Structure formats: C-alpha cells, structure tokens
C-alpha cells in the first residue's frame, strides 16, 4: 500500500460541432489549407467586432442539463490577455468569473463494477487559438489561424479522481456524453476533444492538497493515463527525496513517455482578465432552457440503466454498449431481431464484432456488418443450428466475404448434429476405439470425460450439439 494519494482534476476542451465559428461566420472544417477559414474577425483585424453564435449557447446549455448542472441565466465573456502568435487579438475571449454552466456531476463505472461520482465544477465557453507549425521552416514558425475562433466548451472537474484509471474513465464518460448530445464530434486525433490534467499527490490521510502540476494538451486516453502515471511517480520520487513539487505547466512527450516543464508559458503569467466590452452579458430565460431540455436525447446513463434492467445486462456491459449512441443503436437493432437473446447478442457485439472492428480500426457506424446479419448468426446459435464455437468460424466468413450466417452454414455444412441417434453412433465408435481410456475412466479417472468429448467433437467436425453430446456420453460411460 502506497503512502501517497493521487489527486486529479481534468479540464476538458471540447470543440463544439458548429458550422461557423463562435464569433464569426467562418467555416470550422478541419484540414482546410492554412488561413483559408480565417476571416477579418478571426484575424483580429483593426475595427472588427465579435457576435456570438446562438448554436454555441444552445450546446453549452445542453451539456449543462445533461450533467445536472445549474444553467446560469447571466454569464459574461472576459478577455484573457497574453501575447502568443496563435492568438491574433492578444487576448482570448473566455467566460471567467461567470460561466454558463455551474456545478454538475457525472457518474463513472470502473472496471471492477464500482461506481463513483465526479463533480463538474463548471463548463464555460471560449474561443480556440490557431496553430503554430514548425516543420520545414528553418528558424521560423508558421501561423495558421483556421482554428482561431473555433468554439470550445471547457469542462472543469472537481479534483475528485484518485488514479489515472479514474481520470480516463471520467474523460471517456464526458467523451460519450458530448457525442450523445451531438455537440462535439469527439475526434481526438484532430484535437476536437483534449484535456489538461491537474495532478498532485499528498500523504494518505492528509487534508490539504499537494502542489499541482498542469499537464497540457493531452489528446488521447492512453496519453492521459501514461502522462498521469508518469507525473505521479515523478512527484512521489521528488517528495521522497526531499524535493518540492513546483506549481507549473508541463507538456507530455508521448515518444519519451515523460512530462517536462514548459517554462515559456510560465514567464509573466498575468492574464489581466476583465469583462469584454465588445460582448454583452449572455442572458437566458427559463423558456429557452426548457426548450433545450425538451430536445435532449436519451442520455448514456439513462440508456445504460434501461439496458441493464430491460436486457438483464451487468452494469459494466450496459456501460460498454452505451459508450456511443451508434453502438447502442446497433445493439438494439440486433436485439430487435432476436428478442429472446439479449445477453447472447451483447456478448457478440462486445466480443467478436468489437474485436473485428477494432482490428480494422472501424467504427460500428461504418456499416461493415449490418445488425441484421449479426442477428442472423445469433439466431442460429439460439436455435441450436450451430454451436458457439462453430459460430466463430461462421462469423469470420461473414466478416470476410459479406455472406449471411445461413449461407456460410449451408456452404460449409456446419449445421449442428442434434439427432441423438447419430451422436450415440459416434460415441459408440469412439468408446470402441479407446478401450484403455474407457477402463481408466470407469476406474475413477473422471478427468477423461473431457477426452471423450474432444474425440466425439473431432469425429463430427465440431458439429455435435454440446449439451446432447454431454448427456449421451455421460449415460454411456456410466452404463
């Protein structure tokens, strides 16, 4: 048992999936040629002014309602002043003292099935900065402001997480939620969903938090886990060797697997926040909030609870199946075809299907294997046409050539043998061929039961119905 306790809080930046930017009519497509989606407002040209995108407000309210937060009817944009080449105006518009979403919470389920509630301190609207490009420009940095002014929802958690695993579970939960709400595409490679992790350690039982380091710009779940684990170890080593943790900003280097200090961001860190005089307070009335509430989809937790109770799934499985709206919809499409087999369907969706998709790096929504096809396979297991084991072979064929389960079963002659007399005949042959083993079994070596099952399966090409085989074999061995 470690003497140290880890304390983690996350600041998640979710790019809002709007058509246009937060303060201008520029497009927000990813990957456009440099500066082709930066208009005069995004470039901070002299004289231009911001006007707030309505959709951004609606999306923030959606998120707030989904985490059970208070929606502020009065929120204010401030200016965060600092100089950086990717920040055209020399300040970032960001809600500071009065954010739009206040005090919500999310429940996470850990792998061992236990649950935990993580507080969401606040979520506020702000604008993204541009990008600095260093490659191919000796001694220079190129600035692309296409991303400048893209709307962000910054979701700030309480320091409630106690391990990297909890942090990842929370981040995944937020990731699931924003995609359910269709307010963020969740694309982490493109930077649409990323986070800063505030990490500190303290002696177990201590009341005061330790000094925290902020690890910036983590854009994959794996990096979050590794960066936190590295940072925790670094801080513990430092403290145990008599050192002190510095409050600072750090950067995770995925190649080296370590965090390092970002001193450039530290110097003269005085942001001089003040309310932006070019933007007025955002005032929302209850009618607007209720209107947004009415448009909320079934949320992941609600869906998971319904899956657990309606389909008899474990909380963990229900959580996995509801991790995305698309996966949950796929699962329900399968179950609709085989309503008596929700558990079997769940196993196949989370097992073979997930593995196959993962291997090819595909999303379920890509339509690689339509739900009706998978349901066809589940149905054949259910009606005992094939065994679970044979079904894996059938699945492989279905996956590789797009055929239906019935086509594969027919073509390969994989239909399960359920005729008792036929199975009995094979058993008799096997027993006759193996008199020695039979004698050993009858003299008390029970373990040989498996040997006979194997021999019968081998002789039938795996097609004997396992339950019937067990039944008949036991009778004959004991007889």
């Amino acid at each position, binding site marked *: 048992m470690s003497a140290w306790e880890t304390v983690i809080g996350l600041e998640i930046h979710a790019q809002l999936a709007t058509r*246009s930017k937060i303060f201008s*009519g520029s497009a927000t497509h990813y990957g456009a*040629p*440099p500066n082709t989606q930066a208009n005069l407002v995004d470039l901070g*040209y002299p004289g231009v002014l911001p006007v707030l995108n*309505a959709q951004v*407000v609606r999306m923030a309210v959606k998120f707030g309602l989904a985490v059970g937060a208070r929606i502020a009817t009065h929120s204010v944009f401030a200016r965060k002043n600092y100089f950086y080449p990717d920040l055209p105006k020399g300040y970032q518009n960001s809600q500071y003292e009065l954010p739009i979403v206040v005090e919500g919470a999310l429940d996470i389920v850990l792998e061992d099935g236990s649950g935990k509630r993580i507080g969401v301190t606040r979520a506020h609207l702000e604008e993204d900065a541009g990008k600095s490009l260093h490659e191919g420009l000796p001694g220079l940095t190129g600035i692309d402001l296409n991303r400048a002014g893209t709307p962000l929802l910054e979701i700030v958690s309480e320091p409630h997480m106690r391990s990297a695993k909890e942090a990842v579970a929370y981040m995944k939960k937020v990731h699931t939620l924003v995609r359910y709400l269709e307010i963020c595409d969740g694309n982490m490679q493109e930077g649409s969903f990323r986070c800063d992790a505030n990490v500190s350690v303290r002696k177990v039982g201590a009341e005061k938090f330790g000094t925290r380091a902020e690890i910036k710009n983590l854009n994959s779940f794996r990096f979050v886990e590794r960066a936190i684990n590295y940072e925790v170890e670094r801080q513990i080593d430092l403290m145990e060797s008599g050192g002190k943790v510095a409050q600072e900003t750090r*950067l995770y280097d995925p190649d080296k697997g370590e965090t390092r200090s970002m001193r450039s961001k530290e110097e003269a860190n005085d942001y001089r926040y003040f309310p932006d005089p070019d933007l007025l307070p955002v005032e929302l009335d209850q009618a607007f909030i209720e209107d947004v509430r009415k448009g909320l989809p079934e949320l992941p937790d609600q869906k998971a609870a319904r899956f657990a109770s309606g389909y008899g799934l474990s909380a963990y499985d229900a959580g996995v199946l509801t991790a995305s709206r698309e996966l949950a919809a796929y699962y329900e499409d399968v179950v609709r075809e085989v309503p008596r087999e929700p558990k079997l369907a769940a196993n196949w969706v989370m097992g073979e299907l997930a593995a196959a998709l993962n291997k090819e790096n595909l999303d379920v929504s890509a339509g690689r294997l339509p739900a009706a096809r998978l349901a066809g396979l589940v149905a054949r297991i259910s009606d005992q046409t094939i065994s679970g084991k044979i079904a894996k072979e059938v699945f492989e064929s279905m996956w590789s050539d797009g055929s239906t389960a019935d086509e594969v079963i027919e073509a390969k002659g994989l239909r399960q043998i359920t005729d008792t007399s036929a199975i009995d005949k094979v058993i008799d042959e096997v027993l006759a061929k193996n008199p020695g083993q039979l004698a050993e079994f009858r003299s008390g070596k029970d373990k040989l039961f498996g040997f006979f099952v194997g021999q019968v399966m081998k002789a039938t090409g795996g097609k004997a119905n396992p339950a019937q085989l067990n039944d008949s074999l036991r009778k004959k061995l004991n007889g």
Partner: protein
Amino acid sequence: MPLTREQIASIAALARLDLSSSEIPIYQNSLSSILEFIGALEAADTANVVPMAHPLPGQSQRLRPDVVTESDHHEQYQANASQVAAGLYLVPKVIE
C-alpha cells in the same frame, strides 16, 4: 508612491513594449503622476455599488444564427502582413 524603474520595466515587458533606458524615467514620472491622479477614486464611497461594464443598462448579448457567411480571402488579407509563405504568417521560431 512613485513607480520604480523595475516596475516600469516589468509593466513594459508585460505589454511587450521596448523602452530605451532614457524613456524609462519619463514613464516613471508620468505614470506615477497618473496613478496619483486616479488615486482620487479611493475616497469614493462605493459600498454596495455594482460595477458598470457597459454604458447602456439592461442590454444583453444578441445571438447570431450558426451560418457560414465567409469565403476564402487569405491572399487579400495577407497583403498587409510583412512575412508570409504558403499561406502561413511567419514569426521567429516559437520555442515551447
């Protein structure tokens, strides 16, 4: 209390203004007298007074429909920039 050289230097650094050593005392003097002048505010009784950020009371932020209205004009916009290449604005290397 008059501002020190160091204070002027640190304000100028925060504002990214290059000041020559001969300019510093000039700003020391003038900023000190400005601060003394605005120090008159201290005496005002502002207990329970809400700060006023906008000159027209009761106004709230207007919302714009989420519509793309802009097209690419980067060449025109970059005509005012001193150093560009391949559509990028260039600055001396940024070290993170």
